[in-house]
């Protein structure tokens, strides 16, 4: 079956605009993660969804960032009033949800804020 799908693959936006990034996880995967990767840096944890439990938002860098997930399907990451420091690749990963299950990553969305 298809892997994790992210859209758009590239997004250029002006400072101050809102953006929405989408992630379609692998069917049946109950866990979903968002990460941010700035140029030359590692993956920075943002948010984690597990089934119908309340999401772990402990990695969100500011209240401009929010994410939603509908059941065990699509997730959207929203960044309001974008800033230049938000420029990065945003990676989504899903997993079957068992303890330490391997993460399956999407190709990412490259966000550029001008």
């Amino acid at each position: 079956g298809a892997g994790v799908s992210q859209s758009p693959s590239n997004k250029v936006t002006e400072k101050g605009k809102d953006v929405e990034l989408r992630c379609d996880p692998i069917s049946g995967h109950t866990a979903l993660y968002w990460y941010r990767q700035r140029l030359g840096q590692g993956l920075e944890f943002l948010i984690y969804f597990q089934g119908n439990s309340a999401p772990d938002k402990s990695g969100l860098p500011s209240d401009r960032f929010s994410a939603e997930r509908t059941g065990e399907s699509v997730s959207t990451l929203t960044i309001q009033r974008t800033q230049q420091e938000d420029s990065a690749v945003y990676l989504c990963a899903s997993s079957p949800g068992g303890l330490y299950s391997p993460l399956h990553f999407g190709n990412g969305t490259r966000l550029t804020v001008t």
Partner: protein
Amino acid sequence: AQRVTQPEKLLSVFKGAPVELKCNYSYSGSPELFWYVQYSRQRLQLLLRHISRESIKGFTADLNKGETSFHLKKPFAQEEDSAMYYCALSGRLLFNKFYFGSGTKLNVKP
């Protein structure tokens, strides 16, 4: 707080030479460690995990709790091993979240 450190941004070796990619971690609980790899134009994917004690593509990694390390090793590097390698940490105290290092780019020269 938890932290994963990969001290080398770039590691270049010749084909057939041994390779070791370093990973150190900081974590107050019992760690679970992983190595992920990203080949050119491919997605980030799991290479191996400590819990499975496996060898994948000739790579092995041993968890050393005394030195808080999980270095990735291969006795004879191949050109197809050239990729970005990320060390990742999880554990019960982290509630199934994973924390990644900054990555090491391995370049295997012919």
